[in-house]
């Protein structure tokens, strides 16, 4: 089933906070999980409400984010949008893992040489 992902962005990373992201990435996947297209949305100002509105308007299936207020997490879930939160790392890595169906809430995707 085709799906659209929404990822709030900070540079090329999943934004640390959903409510403070000034940019979001929309990724369109086909039924097999292959990436069809990407589009970037620049927000006039960071806003959780605006991101939720975009998610509903674009019929997003899943939101991949890091920190998110419980209120908006609950709201998106109520709207039947999957929320994979506490994901830390590059957005590309998160998308790749989502496509492989291995992305889970709390995944840390940074390469940590000293960890």
């Amino acid at each position, binding site marked *: 089933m085709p799906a659209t992902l929404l990822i709030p962005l*900070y540079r090329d990373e999943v934004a*640390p906070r959903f409510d403070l992201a000034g940019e979001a990435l929309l990724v369109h996947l086909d039924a097999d999980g292959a990436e069809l297209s990407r589009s970037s949305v620049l927000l006039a100002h960071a806003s959780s409400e605006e991101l939720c509105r975009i998610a509903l308007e674009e019929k997003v299936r899943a939101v991949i984010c890091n920190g998110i*207020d*419980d209120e908006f997490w609950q709201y998106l879930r109520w709207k039947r949008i999957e929320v994979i939160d*506490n994901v*830390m790392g590059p957005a590309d890595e998160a998308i790749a893992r989502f496509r492989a169906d291995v992305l889970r809430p709390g995944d840390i995707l*940074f390469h940590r*040489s*000293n*960890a």
Partner: protein
Amino acid sequence: MGNGPGRDAVPRTASPGLRLPDAPCPSPRARNNAQRRSRCFVPTQQTAPAAPHGIRPRAGSPARHGAPPLPHVSGISPLPVDLAAMLDALPVGVALLDTDCTIRLMNRALETLTGFTTAEVRGIPCRHALRASICLHRCPLRRPLTTASGVTVATASGAHYDMADDGNLPPAQEGDILNRHRRRIPVRMSMSPLRDADGRVVGWLHAVEDLTLVRELEEKTAKGEAFGPLVGRSVAMERVFQALPAVAQNDGPLLVTGETGTGKDTLAEAVHKASSRAREPFVKASLSSLPEFLAESELFGHRKGAFPGADENKPGRFRLAQGGTLYLTEVGDLPLSIQGRLLAFLDEGVIYPVGATDPVACDVRLVVATNRDPEQLVTEGRLREDLFRRLSAVRLHLPPLRERGEDIEFLLNHFMGHFAARMKKTVRGCSGKALRTLLDYPFPGNVRELRNIAEYAVTLCHGETVMPAHLPAYLFQAKAEARRAERERRAGRGMPGAFDATGATGATGATGEAQPAAQGTSGDGGEHLARTSVSDLERRLIADALQRTGNRRGEAAELLGWGRSTLWRKMKQYGMC
């Protein structure tokens, strides 16, 4: 915080004693410098190859914070001190960051705050682990590099911080963090550089203080609800609020003074609730209207057969309040014999029920109140001096509303909000004229009167704003009288107590603004009027109206702008029928 120095901003030397991962080992010269500069972070002899960043492992240390061995500091005691354990003892959250602003260590307080363990987030940029509101836009390390000529340099890696110029970090900043459990926590954050022996920055110490309790307290204070229904923001009330916790914890007797309607009962209850007796009963006794023997029985109880009609043992208020607080209103109205028995209770902790020969021990805190000047009561012989001395050891005075400044508006909004919610109305505030009228009014009935006015106004108001027409008419009469008295005072004339020549009644007009209705009876102006009670004013108005109309009540009511039944009710109330 994470936009700090980029990965290309490699430290030039390492810290001597407290070293973070990736820092090269300090030179002997640097170690010597460190010994001179600080006794806290002195490097110990390197006996093993340095771990990355120079954090040296301790053999056998438990690895609570993750894979790498625990860092330690030396120079504090003969043996190295476990840095993680030391930081865990701190009550505020602390993170150690390297020069790239990646997390190296978090103490237990910060782990609790963020919901992440050090093992989980070690090596990732702090902005992702802390997720503070200031990380993205107000990070103290996110400053542009500026050359000597003042040119701002942007680096490709996002490293904006000039390592050699770190002395001007902004002070602590307030913001919030979003923790792992999606909870927003208000925090105060500060950043301090960690330097090596040569003063170069080798990492950062990030302190995060949880402000949740502070915010809750501030919110309560803003609402003026620090002590239940006792509310206020004025300086006078602030003094009462500040004293209240200490007074509550003191278990001795308490004397509360203040004019009628200032909230003495509420204060007594607030003291009880804030005391260690809060779980025990709070018993109020108002005995001024009872005959002496009944008051005695009511207070101390009686034995069966103590007097005719005493068919059963009665415990009395003292024993009902066992373990808790007994609040006596109007101590000055109590008969002197009862005052003597109260004194005996205060001295010995026992009471004698009427008709009993054996004392009964009572563990009760006594709070008494009076709306009169207790010293004056002592002078008049209505209050025993020895009892007054015992009671006045701890004394709280509630100021009258006219001395509480901004509290009038605050309390008005508070009560209007309360009644609007109760009556399911949308009243939001007062018009300018209505508010001015209220602010000019002396409120002889204090907070109780203001509360009644707010209830009246909300009842009559059907919109969002209370207009003058929604306020009780007597407010305008009092205002007009004060204005007239002031004019007379300035003119230096006497003030005969009668209606003016126009016969205006002070009834509110269509706009709700009152016409001058009556004039005062004294020549000392507004100050005297401020003390004149509303009931006195009404009584005088009624008498004058009846005199002018030849005792014809219908015409008098018309002259006063009241209905006949209102006039009759008020005449009955004042005993003028």
